[in-house]
């Protein structure tokens, strides 16, 4: 993963510095710039926030479609089901990504200096 690469780069730079600077370097990690699909520079935190906003929107949409279905106002029988599936898939993928990031961070923190 791309974020794993820049984390490792930062870690290697930290090896050269005295350990007093370590909190500062860790703080720099969240502000480090990476680029998303269209080449613009966004920070990793912004990427995560955007992805989570999309997942949240999928969940809200699913909720709305289920309400329409239950109150009988929906014209499509498949609207609620598809919205639920989409929300479930998005959320599961986001959870998997979150788990991987956590594991990567744990591995890095456990590295002996």
């Amino acid at each position, binding site marked *: 993963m791309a974020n794993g690469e820049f984390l490792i780069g930062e870690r290697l730079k930290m090896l050269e510095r005295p350990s007093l600077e370590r909190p500062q370097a860790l703080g720099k990690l969240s502000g480090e710039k990476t680029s*998303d*699909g*269209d080449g613009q520079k966004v920070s990793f935190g912004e990427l995560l926030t955007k992805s989570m906003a999309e997942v949240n929107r*999928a969940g809200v949409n699913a909720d709305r479609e289920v309400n329409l279905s239950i109150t009988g106002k929906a014209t*499509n*029988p*498949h*609207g609620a089901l*598809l919205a639920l*599936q*989409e929300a479930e*898939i*998005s959320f*599961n*993928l986001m959870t*998997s*990504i979150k*788990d*991987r990031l956590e*594991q990567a961070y744990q591995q890095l923190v456990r590295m002996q200096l």
Partner: protein
Amino acid sequence: MFRSVFNVAASAMSANRLRINTIASNIANAQTTKTAEGGPYKRRDVVFVAQNINAPDTFGSTLDRATVKAVGAAVYTPPQKDVKVYDPSHPDADPKTGMVTLPDINTVTEMGNMVMASTAYKAAAEVVSATKEIASSLRRLAQRI
């Protein structure tokens, strides 16, 4: 990221549902001689049109919007000839000639179209299932160290 696939599959399901509704209307009104507009019932059909999916305006969806098309369905009345049957005792018979005009609907043809439409609906549902399996295989990939 799977939103385009779900949009397209949902549009396919909606279009085929509209087609099945139209076929049901045709089958139910196969012998209808009087409608609100005056004449006999006219057979209705649907036409499918390729549409652009409504995806959010991000870079990832630009490729999707250019290559992947959803489908829209519209009901129309094809040009047709009515069937005339001689029956002077019918309340809707023409008073001079005694002919009753019936719609030109072949129930067997309509049921064949209905099988096609329901197969297309099920195929769209299978597309959604396949997408779910892809997503779950991604999850398994992410879980292994």
